[in-house]
């Protein structure tokens, strides 16, 4: 699938994925801010304050009714972490004009881009600040969200392990912020964050869908306007990548909670490669714990019946593999022993059969092929790859997957070391 790249200057780029295979189109615009506690708090509140009103649509109800008039225009304003950066993102999904019912005079795409422009250039702000009421209201919602993290024990345990493993780096900061940092947010600081993003932060835009001439004109006008707002201004630096602290001995942390089941999260460091595009880590992770036929699933769950789930995920920005399992404390050590045993087995390439290696690669290649069947997935992936500074040529990536050998996988397993063992012990009162 060909992706056309267009540069607008001022750190504004557009990727175009042109396809007429779908009934809906997608557009995403993201800004990279330094990942600091203050930015996390302000961006989190900003994402929701923007939805409360614009100069043209001054209440949430007016906004929602406007989006409905554009056939339920889907608008997602959020923040994510990509690599070490805090990414502030606006993503819109909308039906193609070809599927607007006959007789309805609605230009959905133009309406969608006009709305994005309202959000960025004409938010509901006066004298350099957002409404005090809206800001305080969204601060409260954000604080509620922080307090509610404990409701989902799986996610809570994962975050706690992450905080410990990434201590001292920007990745240790809670993605929702903290009660203190969100409480310190003001209508002026939120508005200032928006102006900073619009005026100083690198911006990656992606369009996926039926890219007609009229759509091209609308997008070029919008993105040129955005680029012009940065003319002569210095662009914000990217967040500096900081290596994680290496522990000589596994750091073990146990916390207790009233719950029926414990949650275990293990953070392992893996060998770093100078080549960030190397796909050996992806293949290793899939074999280790990334699928229902992985070593962890078939052994810790199926053979030993220790848990319902035991899986792994790879995080290349921090060179880690993270294992997660819902497990009772009496089975914790047995599970860790088996996980370590499987790592040991994988350290020898003779323990990785050709069939296992090939079916793993097929699974990964299949997921890349399947990506082109979902425009939002493709948009999200492309945006992430651009922020990582990695190759977006899917065929080239697939070749790299095919080139991975069992020796490559074994090298990673051999260099994998448990750094943090976190357990959220579930004990009912």
């Amino acid at each position: 699938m060909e992706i056309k790249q267009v540069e607008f200057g001022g750190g504004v780029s557009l990727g175009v994925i042109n396809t007429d295979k779908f009934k809906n189109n997608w557009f995403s615009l993201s800004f990279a801010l330094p990942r600091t506690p203050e930015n996390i708090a302000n961006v989190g509140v900003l994402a929701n304050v923007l939805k409360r009103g614009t100069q043209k649509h001054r209440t949430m109800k007016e906004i929602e009714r406007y989006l409905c008039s554009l056939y339920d225009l889907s608008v997602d304003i959020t923040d994510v972490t990509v690599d070490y950066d805090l990414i502030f993102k606006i993503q819109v999904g909308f039906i193609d004009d070809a599927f607007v019912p006959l007789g309805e005079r609605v230009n959905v795409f133009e309406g969608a881009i006009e709305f994005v422009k309202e959000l960025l250039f004409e938010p509901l702000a006066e004298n350099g600040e957002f409404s005090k009421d809206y800001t305080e209201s969204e601060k409260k919602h954000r604080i509620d969200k922080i307090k509610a993290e404990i409701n989902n024990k799986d996610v809570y345990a994962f975050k706690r392990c992450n905080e410990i493993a990434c201590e001292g780096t920007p990745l240790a900061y809670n993605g929702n912020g903290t009660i203190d940092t969100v409480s310190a947010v003001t209508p002026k600081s939120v508005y200032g964050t928006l102006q900073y993003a619009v005026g100083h932060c690198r911006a990656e835009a992606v369009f996926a869908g039926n890219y007609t001439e009229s759509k091209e004109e609308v997008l070029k006008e919008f993105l040129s306007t955005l680029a012009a707002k940065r003319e002569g201004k210095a662009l914000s630096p990217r967040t500096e990548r900081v290596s994680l602290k290496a522990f000589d001995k596994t750091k073990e942390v146990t916390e207790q909670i009233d719950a029926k089941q414990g949650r275990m999260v293990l953070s392992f460091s893996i060998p770093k490669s100078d080549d960030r595009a190397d796909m050996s880590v992806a293949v290793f992770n899939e074999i280790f714990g990334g699928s229902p036929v992985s070593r962890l699933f078939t052994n810790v769950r199926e053979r030993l019946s220790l848990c319902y789930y035991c899986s792994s995920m790879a995080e290349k920005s921090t060179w880690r593999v993270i294992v997660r399992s819902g497990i009772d404390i009496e089975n914790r050590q047995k599970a860790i022993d088996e996980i370590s045993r499987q790592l040991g087995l994988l350290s020898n390439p003779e323990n990785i059969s050709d069939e296992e290696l090939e079916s793993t690669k097929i699974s990964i290649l299949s997921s890349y092929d399947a990506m082109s069947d979902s425009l939002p997935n493709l948009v999200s992936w492309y945006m992430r790859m651009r922020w990582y500074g990695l190759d977006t040529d899917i065929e080239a990536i697939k070749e790299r997957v095919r080139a991975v050998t069992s020796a490559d996988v074994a090298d990673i397993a051999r260099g994998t070391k448990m750094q943090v063992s976190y357990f959220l012990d579930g004990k009912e009162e």
Partner: protein
Amino acid sequence: MGTKTEIVRNAFIGEEMTKITHASGLMIYVIKKEFKSAYAIFGTRYGSFDNEFVVDGENITVPHGIAHFLEHKMFETEDGGDTFEQFAEIGADANAYTSTDRTAYLFSCTEDFYKAFETLVNMVVTPVFTKENVEKEQGIIAQEIKMCEDRPSNTLHYNLMKALYEKNPVRIPIAGTVESISEITAELLYKCYNAFYRMNNMAICVCGDVDSDKILEIVDRYVPSVSESEVEFSDEADSPRVNAALVSEEAEVSKPMFRIGVKFPEGTSENSCACEILWEALFSSCEDFFSDIYESELVSGYRYYYEYSRPCSYFAIGGDSDSPEAVFKKFKEYAAKTVANGVSKEAFERAKRNAYADVIRDFDYSEEIAEGMFESFLVNENYLDIAESYQAVSYDEVQELAKIALSDERFCMSVLYPRAKSPLKGE
């Protein structure tokens, strides 16, 4: 009766579906799309709701959670292996799920579709239940049950079911309880399989760049052209009166969570589109109720939905609130006002527009299309008619539904309150 094939078309949304009625009674639906990946479901009209049934005149009661347990065991092969491995060898991503009224086995893949499809069909028609494999699974599913019990949203939902219904099995978690699954045996699994996994109670739904003739060829190899007697489903009428106005308990949550339910036993496949439009017109983020409770900071994490399936039909709204009682009061006031003044015409038009957009959105995903076909099979509807079904809903119909549904006796609430102390011990 021989196998019958028909082509169903919808010119406006530009889709075409092949509908095959196999000689065995099995339904096969195929929508061809030029996607790289294909998605296939082989499902049955059988879920956690069906724990009392009649087979050959014999009344049978089985432990709760057996439909889900059976689903887990279907992946086991005769030699003690796992069908997941067979799917993995060809790069297919397989899964399964059980809900109150259905069980589905599915996969998606970008290559070797027919090989994966054959694996799926063979797996579903060849159950292997043994004493040993049942005992092993009890440990795994017990862990799954505990995991689900730790999810507040799970507890909130099942308490809502208890508030709505006195006896309906939807009150019991789909996976059952640790106690109920300990009573499951291989013999009982076979009883349930033979009762509900009859071809005339099942459907295959496929979306992707596939050939329906080849799909039929594979089905013919594994499914005999013999029809069995049809499964009997009892259709007991239910009262509109709820079981309890309020079900509440304490849980490990930071703030009260609530779900308000409106019992609607009059729900049918014929009026389900109208019911969805009614709820959208009253409770979407475009409407007064939501803007009132959000801007007064009464609710966060808001959701609203209409649930229609064979076991149950109800409306719901939910969220987090420091004062669920105040939300419930506002809800009742809003309901009374709607009954008195009617549903707003503009809100009705907005709801129809959103419903139409949802349908168009779903047609971009092979998984949504295959699931949509399966859903339509379960309610005996034509999937390609769905856009027109929403368009055909009239304002008068929605007004009538509002008058029936929005009465006090049908309202109930489930609430989870935080425990008095911090959920993290030692803080």
